[in-house]
């Protein structure tokens, strides 16, 4: 019974909230990457490829960062 009560601490609620946030954030960066890909095909400049690469890098940063943050907040 005690362990059930411990599960619903303020810190655990925060953890749950952050996990939901991290999931949404990762999805956001994934959709952003695809949106940028479409726009880079619509407007072709010599920097479009670089911007497309930046969007991919951003997604990678969010993905790796989210995993790290997820591990850190579990402690």
């Amino acid at each position, binding site marked *: 019974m005690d362990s059930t009560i411990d599960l619903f601490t303020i810190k655990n609620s925060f953890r749950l909230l*952050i996990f939901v946030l991290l999931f949404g954030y990762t999805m956001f960066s994934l959709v952003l990457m695809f949106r940028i890909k479409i726009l880079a095909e*619509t*407007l072709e400049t010599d920097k479009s490829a670089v911007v497309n690469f*930046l*969007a991919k890098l951003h997604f990678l940063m*969010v993905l790796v960062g989210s995993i790290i*943050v997820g591990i*850190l907040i579990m*402690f």
Partner: protein
Amino acid sequence: MSTNSSAATLRSAKSLKSYLARISDATKAKSLASFAAFPEKTGFTGQDRDEHIVLLLRQHPAVYIPQVLIVIGMLLIPLLILPLLKLLEVDLGAGDAFFGLGIVILWIMIAVSFVMVNFFKWFFNVYIVTTQRIIDIDFDNLFSHRVSEAQLEKIEDVSHTSVGMWAVIFDYGSVYIQTAAEQREFEFTNVPRPRDVQDTINDLLELKQSANG
């Protein structure tokens, strides 16, 4: 469009219209410029072979000053919280320290994303004036973008406004292009040198009308 053909276009029409003299200084603008005349290695979906980009416009960078200040503020917050915790003599255990580090990393990631998203919005919110038409590429949010275009001969009225202190200091404003009935008005928002943009569109329209006889 190559440099030679751009120069040829400039030379051939220089005596005819004022816009070429007004925008000629922007022909060497980099691809990350917010005001570029006859940009090289630039194209768009649906561009015709005989169609040349005359102006490539983006919002003036000064419009993004508030966003820059927000990011600086966001990055300063973690730096202020740690000394504050020390000042309040809050003793963090190992678990709390890891939890706090996770929050700080998340916060910095959000700040970086804020910069990236604003950069992408600036880069892809583009207004293009070609020898045939005007194109407005809007990237307002993650879930939608809109590409609008109108042929030059459909344009009925061009006007511009420059409102506010920053607009005066940095010389930017909005250009409004009214097209034929039942079509919406185009708005080139916060673009540099709005007078030159208006003059360019008007001159291109006159050239187009005279060519059509």
